[in-house]
């Protein structure tokens, strides 16, 4: 028995997050991931996945890069950031979060980013694998107007699931006042931390930035509540796939546009009209005329999972698509996947054949998400 395809490449100089010792103590199985040593699982991916769907899961996402952005003068940071992102950032309210793309001149996605408007600054959370590229890009285009300050002094944890609120309310009842994509503060004794009601699992949940030297102590305190289970990268991936959410490097790349990725909803009408962002010409033309390919969900008939890299064929044996993420869905008990498919074949229930290691698997185009989101939106 030999593992055929390691999904995570090794790296010689791995960094440790502030929670490294705790991961080891909790029996985490550590793997190299985006330059960090992080747990892929503790007890098991399926058990941790269920904890997040049914109770609460705790994820260390400190590998993601927090960057605070301020202006060199009195101009609005959001207005300047709109020059590199097609999202609505001028209109973003204080303490609100927004998901948007950084785009390049051809309309491709440089990164998918969470923007938060805080007092006198914006906070960006960048993908670990893209952070260096993003910072170079941001500095090259906006470095004469904005100051980018990476916050490697902060650990970032994510608490996801229907019981996340009760886990945190014991420490600070005010967190209940936050709605989905809203930021605030949470107090753990003397320590005040930035918190937002957000996450990447489709569940209600929170993300908390904690000073590195206090992170372990606060996480230990949170874990005293046994409804909260530590969860690893494995469960994080199966949860986001069920929620139909994109992963940079799988669904998103510099040659994929937000329109192809089915992320047009991140581009408000005002931005489609002003067209003052990189790649606006391509993106706006696609918004009007459509795209040749589009991101869809795929469900396999049978039990065998379809993994990323599998090609999709039509009834004439022509290649019409490519799977970008796939695996077993613990919530539905079935294999699920996402991928890009030629637009004429993207209709729901359309039957296709995937080829997985030389074997043909029947599958159909499925609506996303596979598991309904349960965010606590403001009324």
């Amino acid at each position: 028995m030999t593992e055929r395809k390691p999904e995570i490449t090794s790296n010689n100089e791995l960094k440790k997050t502030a929670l490294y010792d705790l991961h080891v103590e909790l029996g985490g199985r550590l793997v190299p991931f985006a330059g960090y040593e992080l747990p892929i699982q503790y007890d098991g991916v399926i058990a941790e996945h269920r904890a997040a769907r049914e109770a609460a899961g705790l994820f260390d996402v400190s590998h993601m890069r927090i960057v605070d952005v301020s202006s060199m003068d009195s101009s609005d940071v959001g207005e300047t950031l709109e020059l590199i992102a097609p999202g609505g950032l001028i209109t973003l309210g204080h303490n609100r979060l927004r998901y948007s793309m950084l785009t390049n001149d051809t309309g491709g996605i440089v990164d998918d980013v969470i923007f938060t408007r805080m007092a006198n600054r914006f906070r960006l959370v960048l993908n670990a694998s893209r952070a260096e590229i993003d910072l170079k890009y941001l500095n090259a285009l906006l470095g004469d107007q904005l100051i980018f300050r990476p916050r490697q002094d902060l650990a970032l944890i994510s608490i996801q699931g229907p019981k996340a609120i009760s886990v945190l309310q014991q420490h600070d009842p005010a967190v209940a006042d936050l709605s989905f994509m809203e930021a605030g503060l949470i107090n753990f004794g003397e320590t005040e931390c930035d918190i937002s009601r957000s996450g990447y699992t489709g569940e209600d949940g929170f993300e908390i930035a904690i000073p590195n030297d206090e992170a372990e102590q606060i996480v230990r305190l949170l874990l005293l509540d046994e409804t909260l289970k530590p969860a690893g990268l494995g469960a994080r991936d199966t949860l986001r796939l069920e929620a139909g959410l994109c992963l940079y490097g799988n669904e998103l790349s510099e040659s994929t546009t937000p329109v192809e990725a089915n992320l047009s909803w991140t581009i408000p009408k005002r931005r489609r009209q002003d067209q003052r962002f990189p790649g606006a010409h391509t993106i706006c033309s696609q918004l009007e005329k459509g795209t040749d390919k589009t991101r869809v969900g795929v469900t396999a008939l049978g039990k065998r999972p379809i993994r990323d890299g599998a090609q999709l064929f039509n009834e004439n044996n022509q290649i019409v698509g490519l799977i970008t993420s796939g695996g077993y869905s613990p919530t539905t008990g079935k294999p699920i996947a996402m991928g890009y498919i030629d637009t004429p074949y993207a209709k729901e229930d359309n039957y296709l054949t995937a080829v997985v290691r030389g074997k043909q698997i029947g599958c159909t185009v499925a609506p996303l998400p596979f598991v309904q989101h349960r965010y606590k939106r403001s009324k």
Partner: protein
Amino acid sequence: MQTPEELRYSKDHEWVRHEGAYVRVGITDFAQDALGDVVYVDLPQVGTIIASDLAFAEVESTKSVSDIFAPLAGEIVEVNQVLEDEPELVNEDPYGDGWVCVIKPTDIGHLELLMDAERYLAFVSQDPEA
């Protein structure tokens, strides 16, 4: 980690149980633990002729796909159909209900070429993944 005394073991982490003219084959406790939650087992067809050390089945976990190699050359005479619906048995009971197949070896004497429990334990303890 369990390594029953009566079994033989391959360097690819399969176990082999001698049953008269046949051998029953599965993956070891060490292997199932390293794999993580098993979600799919691709079983061979009964009647397939297999050569030793070549892949003849696949086991897929939430994390990865791995090959199962033939510990002995021979013919597949039975496969564990239950794994099609309950692949998690590979994790829950690797030496029992989680067995993979029964092989009629070309030469049952080749069993002696496989490791006994003691040697397998020593082998695993040198494995960097252990």
